[in-house]
């Protein structure tokens, strides 16, 4: 009987091991860092390889414009291109969302709204080179929220924001953090 108890206990422990439901998969931070790496690469490339090279500062073949649909040979500004990507993703995928925000937005709808966004944007400006990670509850869902710095990579970025009539700030400089990319992943 004693042996039976030992065997039963061993079996129980073995079966517990079999039923280990420890989640395997990518950590949220690795996931959002990876997403940002792709987003940022595309954003920088569009700004420097397309807008800067073929726009007003380059050949002048194309016209980057806020109202690009109303302009002949018009193309979206880098921020609009980025936002268009975010909107397209939102139509096809619900595993993450992202947006471009700033404490000094041209469109006030792009100012931080949630506490995490406000704290995150302030953090990346006060701590150059660092990212901000947190969790927040929105609409009854818990999200892993990451905020990454959006840096002015071209004179065009700085010049446009400093000159725009709706911009709350007119003294941006190149390589300065102008805003942040907020990525959210719902945690199940």
């Amino acid at each position, binding site marked *: 009987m004693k042996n039976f108890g030992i065997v039963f206990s061993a079996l129980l422990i073995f079966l517990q091991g079999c039923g280990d439901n420890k989640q395997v998969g990518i950590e949220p931070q690795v996931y959002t860092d990876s997403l940002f790496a792709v987003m940022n690469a595309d954003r920088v490339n569009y700004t420097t390889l397309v807008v800067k090279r073929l726009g007003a500062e380059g050949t002048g073949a194309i016209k980057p414009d806020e*109202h690009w649909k109303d302009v002949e040979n018009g193309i979206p500004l880098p921020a609009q291109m980025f936002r268009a990507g975010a909107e397209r993703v939102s139509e096809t995928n619900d595993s993450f969302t992202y947006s471009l925000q700033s404490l000094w937005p041209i469109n006030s709808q792009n100012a931080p709204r*949630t506490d995490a966004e406000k704290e995150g944007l302030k953090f990346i400006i006060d701590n150059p080179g660092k990212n901000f990670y947190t969790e927040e509850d929105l609409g009854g869902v818990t999200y892993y929220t990451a905020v990454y710095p959006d840096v002015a990579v071209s004179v065009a970025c700085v010049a446009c924001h400093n000159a725009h009539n709706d911009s709350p700030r007119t003294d941006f400089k190149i390589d300065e953090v102008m805003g942040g990319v907020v990525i959210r992943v719902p945690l199940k």
Partner: protein
Amino acid sequence: MTIKHYFWCIWLLATITLLSCLAYTIFLSEDKSVLLIGKASHGHYQIEMSCVSCHTDSFSGEEDFQSACVNCHGKELKLVDDTHPKRKFTDPRNADRTKILDARYCVTCHTEHQAEYTLGMGLTIPQDFCIHCHQDIAEERPSHKDIEYNSCANAGCHNFHDNSSLYQDFLVRHANEPVLNAIARLSDMKDIKSKGYVPDMNLSLSDQILPLDIEATIDSLSLAKAAHEWEGSAHANAGINCLDCHSNQNEDSKKTEADSQVISDLDQIKSGSTWIAKPDHLVCSRCHEYQTETYYEGKHGMRISPYLQLPLSPLRPSMSDLPFKADSLNREHGCNTCHGAHGYETEEAAVGGCLSCHDDDHSTHYKGSIHFALWQKEISGELPPGSGVSCASCHMPREEIIHKGEKMVQVTHNQNTYFQPNEKMIRPVCMQCHGLSFALDALADKTLIENNFKGKPAHHIPSIDWAIKRDQKPRKE
């Protein structure tokens, strides 16, 4: 058989009768009015008997309704670059906003069958809905400080969806335009003959191809009248013979104007083509694809659209709440209603077609307007093409489309696209001839619209003034 059994029989009979009536109404009858929970809005009453067009599933949820809305209205919203698309509200950062006003779904603001609560544009929520997201607008734009939130969508200011002619840079760019452009002309229709799209055949009465037993289907007087109208028409000039429309010989070969070919042939008649006494829109669509497609999208043709889940009988003026002429109330709408059966004069359709039914103030005042005077001069050749303004010039305007890689100007038959809110007409219609400021003022003046633009706008809309002032403000240091 006891009296109890009699009652059971009566009960059973009554139940079967009621269920049969219900089943007939749901599955067979076109008239489903007994099932309506309320009258549909002015934009949907035409198809309210085709319940499944919106209620796509027995237990339709928000997403099903949304798909139904987008299925019909998505193209137009995309065309005008919708200012508030669903994708703007799906970001979780707007969860608190969508909890108050769920702008992800059309039905949040446009609930159907609520006639007593329905405002213009089919709006069924209080008009101050902008406040939910833009309550701090006065901080950003001091000019908006004392403006009531229920006036944001007033004519000349903002629209929820289409702001393509109301955004700040557009206002600034078109400031200081004259009331009337130096050359005020509508877009030219491309000369499709010069492009070789339509053969120049100029058929005459002797070229008619008809079945040998035609006299059995139509009396000789009517036949002569039809033939006379046809001779010299655009169809005869393009080589379209009687059987091209009056037979089913082309049914399987959907053509466009670009590749229409005359295929009338006596041998084909003998080979079994069926004579169609009264060709309908489906026959027209064989060549006039763009026109019929847009016709189905508009108020006139939506009931007979082949895309409707449950096609209905043609629209009749009596179905509408708008004022119509008494003798037109039971006229069924089809291509021939405006274009006639054989003459197909677009000039007659562009004015006569409309005024033969519509009897509202705007319509009845048209013939006393400057627009009509110009139209008459264009028709008489006194002024060049594009100088006159018909009903269709504004309500079925000319659109630039891409056909086989080439830009063409065609007449849309979907009047919804440029109808309400009337700022939708500014760019494609009014600004063809008028300056933006005048257009904004005129479209905001209800009295001026009713009398068909006789006189000057009573009030000035300050949108452009404010936009210029903001554009010229000193930059912050």
